[in-house]
């Protein structure tokens, strides 16, 4: 079986990982409750979208 001939340096590892960063999700603000929400989706917090469209939001008991 083929095997690595030489040890991989830490620098090499970090150089490879330099491009592995994740981008953060773009979030928009809910105009109703000012919570951060995903754009083009109903707000999970208050259930509103475009003024209306209230979904059933479970209240914490």
């Amino acid at each position: 079986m083929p095997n690595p001939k030489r040890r991989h340096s830490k620098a090499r590892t970090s150089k490879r990982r330099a491009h592995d960063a994740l981008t953060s999700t773009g979030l928009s603000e809910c105009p109703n409750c000012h919570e951060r929400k995903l754009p083009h989706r109903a707000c999970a917090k208050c259930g509103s979208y475009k003024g209306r469209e209230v979904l059933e939001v479970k209240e914490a008991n």
Partner: protein
Amino acid sequence: MRHRNAGFKLGRNTSHRRALLRNLVTSIVLEDRVETTITKAKAVRPHVEKMITLGKKGDVHSRRQALAFLQTREAVTRLFDTVAPRYGDRNGGYLRIVRTGFQKGDGAEKAFIELLGAEAVLDEKRQKRAEVREKKREELQKALAEQQQQAGEEPQA
């Protein structure tokens, strides 16, 4: 050219897919709003619109065509009597799809698809459901309180 216009297969064979879409269309016509995955919502939209077009025509032939697609007679009646008349002056675009979140388990994106002009009915329905839930909760609390009282009395006697 209809390149890259493949549509949605939904991981099903033809008959399974047709059955699913017919069921969904029937549910939308009957309930005004259905919660499903975003892909299914997008896939049923054209079918619902075709049904509404039939409903707007309103003749016997289109009624039979609707009967051939929709699963129940009640759905056809509702389509022709209450749904289609809402859209007299509108050429298509009878539905609204709103993304609502992600499904637990497989992470599929959920959305609801609803008929335009059904907002008032839906709000009313929601209010009624909320009232029923409130009543149930109160009754439960009452029952719980009674149980606790009984449990409290027994050890004394």
